[in-house]
């Protein structure tokens, strides 16, 4: 038996799980010796081969023979976790913790399951208990970082990840978390991805993401320059190039959407949009300076609409994942490839629930923005329409849960009152905006699914 154990250990360490399974099954059903360890090898091998249902069957079998062994309960809970049956995972791990309450591994796993159930407070409690028992495991620290970031403690979370990376610069998990959640700059993300790729050269995800960043900076600035040139033509020689107007508009929308990933790329873009509006509307039609403020606000608003559209695009991309894979393999059309891959990471971050929110928010917001322009620029008399627009804004504010919308609500309220159309309903609408803004100010909380935990 000792010999078989050693053999199984070596095979398992080498990652030859099929062979481990063959040997373990053979020994399990042929001999009557100690089966506890064999079950563990079988379950772990199935888990490593992502055969979770088989692993679950073996867990049940093992628990039939050794009902008071907490390790099987823990493994079964892990399997339930992988197949997203979180409630079963919780009941199993709770049972395991009743048998052995001071097992940091169990506590850390419990924290992960609770994290998926969005119970961040209890998850924090569990992971802290695990850390009190064993603070040398970097995985626990990283889980705590994720929990803290969910509880709006991003600064501390970032510090934890940095600390782990300072001690273990090649920690795959830490690098992955940092590039996914704590890095907004694409260049920094790229260097982290390169590190990841250096450690695991066959990581397709990192390869894909690096490629995206490369394409992003290669294609986007020239495309932007092209649209800006079209705008110049439209402004300077309107007679000849008047037909360009719809193309310029679509160009602004598409590039603004793609460019919203890196705001620096959008600065000249917004500046052009503002100056374009200022030149035509203020310069030619004699619109007051107060309106310029409104135009700036409008440009920023569009930027956020683009950002929302960008996220929506990410969700849609997730749906057409298989098609994209084919497109990537063909690589015949680099621009199309670039357009498809533009939302590379969003689908992982944004959960279904949030996606639903964006499906509603983005079109509503687009409609609201259009109405806002219509109401403020041309139709000053339509009070009811104004109230409707404010209500729409409040609604989008509620849906979007972002501090930006609160800002929008306030700015909108201020514009409403100061823009020269003080009226009976204005105070009410302003108050409504303020109340909605106050009530719905929620720090941005995205219930995320963490794919890295399943790795």
């Amino acid at each position, binding site marked *: 038996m000792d010999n078989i154990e050693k053999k199984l250990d070596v095979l398992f360490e080498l990652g030859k799980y099929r062979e481990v399974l063959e040997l373990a099954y053979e020994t399990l059903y042929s001999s009557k010796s100690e089966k506890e360890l064999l079950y563990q090898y079988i379950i772990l091998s199935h888990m490593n081969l992502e055969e979770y249902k088989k692993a679950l069957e073996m867990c049940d079998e093992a628990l039939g023979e050794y009902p008071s062994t907490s390790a099987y309960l823990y493994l079964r809970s892990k399997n339930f976790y992988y197949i997203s049956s979180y409630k079963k995972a919780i009941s199993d791990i709770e049972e395991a913790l009743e048998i052995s309450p001071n097992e940091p591994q169990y506590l850390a796993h419990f924290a992960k399951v609770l994290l998926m159930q969005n119970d961040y407070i209890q998850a924090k409690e569990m992971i802290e208990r695990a850390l009190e028992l064993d603070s040398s495991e970097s995985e626990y620290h990283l889980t705590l970082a994720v929990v803290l970031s969910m*509880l709006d403690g991003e600064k501390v979370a970032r510090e934890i990840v940095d600390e782990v990376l300072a001690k273990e610069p090649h920690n795959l998990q830490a690098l992955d978390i940092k590039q996914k959640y704590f890095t907004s700059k694409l260049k920094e993300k790229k260097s982290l991805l390169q590190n990841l790729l250096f450690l695991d050269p066959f990581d397709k995800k990192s390869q894909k993401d690096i490629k995206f960043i490369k394409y992003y900076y290669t294609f986007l600035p020239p495309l932007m320059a092209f649209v800006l040139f079209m705008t110049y033509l439209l402004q300077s020689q309107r007679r000849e190039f008047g037909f360009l107007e719809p193309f310029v508009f679509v160009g602004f929308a598409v590039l603004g959407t793609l460019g919203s990933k890196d705001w620096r790329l959008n600065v000249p873009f917004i500046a052009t949009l503002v100056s374009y509006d200022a030149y035509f509307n203020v310069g030619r039609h004699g619109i007051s300076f107060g309106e310029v403020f409104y135009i700036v606000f409008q440009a920023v608003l569009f930027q956020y609409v683009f950002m929302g559209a960008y996220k929506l695009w990410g969700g849609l991309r997730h749906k057409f994942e298989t098609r994209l894979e084919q497109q990537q393999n063909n690589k015949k059309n680099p621009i199309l490839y670039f357009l498809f891959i533009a939302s590379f990471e969003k689908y992982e971050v944004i959960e279904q629930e949030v996606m639903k929110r964006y499906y509603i928010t983005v079109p509503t917001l687009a409609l609201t923005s259009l109405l806002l322009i219509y109401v403020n620029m041309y139709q000053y008399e339509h009070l009811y329409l104004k109230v409707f627009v404010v209500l729409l804004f409040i609604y989008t504010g509620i849906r979007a849960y972002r501090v930006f919308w609160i800002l929008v609500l306030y700015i909108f309220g201020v514009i409403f009152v100061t823009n020269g159309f003080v009226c009976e309903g204005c105070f009410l609408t302003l108050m409504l905006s303020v109340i909605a803004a106050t009530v719905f100010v929620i720090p941005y909380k995205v219930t995320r699914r963490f794919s890295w935990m399943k790795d």
Partner: protein
Amino acid sequence: MVKILKNIQYSKLIITFFAHLFVSVLYGSFLALLVKEEYGAPLWLSVALQLFIVLLVTYVAYQEEVKRHYPFLKAVGVNFLGIMLWFGVAFTKIYILDVIALVMVLFAIRYRCKKCVEYKRYTLG
């Protein structure tokens, strides 16, 4: 100074500012009006008082938010309590009681509920 400015979490500060703007403006403007109308304070003083109250509320809330989790319901609760206390004071017509109401609101901001967990770090041993 640069270090302090660098350490400020601006996104959190903005969130805090807007989350408590309603209650801070409510008390700020009302107390400013009170000192101006009732006690004949100059305009600059009343404006300064208003600004001071807005900044004070934001500061207290920000200090709380950087150290601990600040649940959404707490923000709603604080604003709601502020309105209710304000109405209570308006009902008694002893407007100076608003000072006490403001202090109560500040204490409500500092109240640590079960969900207000601390952002604690453990050293990687």
